[in-house]
């Protein structure tokens, strides 16, 4: 008898705690949603439009562009040694998206107030300070000889800070995506080296693209987080 009562009591305690936990979870979620809605209002309305536009542009690029992976002589040599390995970590990699005779790369940059990001002539800065955006950057159009000529720098496997506008980190490239010719120059252009367009199916380069896609998604969905962004009104 005593044991049966004990069992019933334990069962009731368990059930009540379960229903309490459930209602508590819903309440927490409701309050969180309220907070998110309030947080969203702190950003300028244009921010949400820009954020959506960046995401949609990336989606279009991911869905429609041809993707090429470029690496330097050293990394290509390392790849040959580890032929067949899908886990090669690239210290230098460039993911190039080709669309209608034009190529784009990804560039990850923070949106500081004194150094805002620019998207279609609108300047935007965010808080907290470490808020980053990954933007598609136009590199080059194909010329009559089938070459794309541009200046940029490699990124690491999971970092997409190509910083195309900092002159010290820019190197000239000439690539032909049809026949696979690839040349890179040194800063100042005195030396020329061969670079390589690599097959992602036999390397880990494809993993880098997956990371880029994840980062772009996270960047977009961060609009539901504590990111507060403003549009810089006076541009000159």
């Amino acid at each position: 008898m005593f044991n049966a009562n004990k069992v019933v009591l334990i069962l009731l305690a368990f059930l009540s705690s379960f229903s309490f936990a459930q209602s508590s979870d819903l309440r927490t979620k409701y309050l969180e949603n309220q907070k998110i809605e309030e947080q969203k209002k702190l950003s300028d309305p244009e921010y949400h439009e820009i954020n959506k536009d960046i995401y949609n542009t990336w989606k279009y690029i991911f869905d429609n562009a041809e993707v090429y992976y470029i690496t330097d002589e050293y990394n290509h040599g390392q790849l040959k040694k580890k032929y067949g390995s899908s886990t090669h970590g690239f210290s230098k990699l460039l993911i190039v998206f080709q669309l209608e005779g034009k190529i784009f790369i990804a560039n990850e940059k923070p949106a500081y107030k004194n150094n805002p990001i620019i998207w279609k002539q609108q300047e935007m800065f965010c808080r907290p300070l470490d808020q980053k955006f990954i933007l598609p950057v136009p590199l080059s159009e194909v010329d009559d000889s089938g070459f794309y000529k541009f200046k940029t720098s490699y990124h690491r496997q999971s970092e997409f800070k190509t910083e195309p506008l900092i002159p010290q980190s820019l190197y000239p490239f000439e690539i032909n995506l049809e026949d696979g010719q690839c040349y890179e120059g040194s800063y100042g252009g005195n030396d020329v080296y061969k670079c390589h367009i690599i097959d992602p199916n036999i390397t880990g380069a494809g993993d880098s693209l997956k990371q880029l896609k994840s980062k772009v998604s996270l960047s977009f969905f961060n609009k539901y987080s504590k990111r507060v962004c403003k549009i810089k009104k006076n541009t000159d």
Partner: protein
Amino acid sequence: MFNILLIGTFAFLNPTLPDNPQKSDQRLDVNSLFEQLKDDNKIETKRLNKDKSKRIKFLTNACNSIKYPPLRFIEEFSKEHRINPNSIKVQYSVLKTERSTKTPFACSVTTVSDAGLCKHDLQITYSSPFKILGLSNVQCK
């Protein structure tokens, strides 16, 4: 780990993630996009150049304004060279233009003292008012 969970959650909530095999239906004007983003680059380059010239102007003025070496340096330098600290005078100070992106901004400072003519790198901050971080690379003739 948290990132993976977050991506997983969003992937579940939103069916239009880039990994989705369904392609974008909307056609994008690639030419227009390319030109618009090129214009963005031009704006950014212009801004960077403007910032650079503003920075150079500030640092040049900061370097030119240095008439006395930092007190701590005078103490150390006079002890090391066994000279009279009062003999140390700044002859001239100019902005050091050659620097790697990872090192602080620096002025090339020439001092004249009982130790002779010495050249130093004086590291300064890009903040108003600027701060002297330290002296290095002392070379005396």
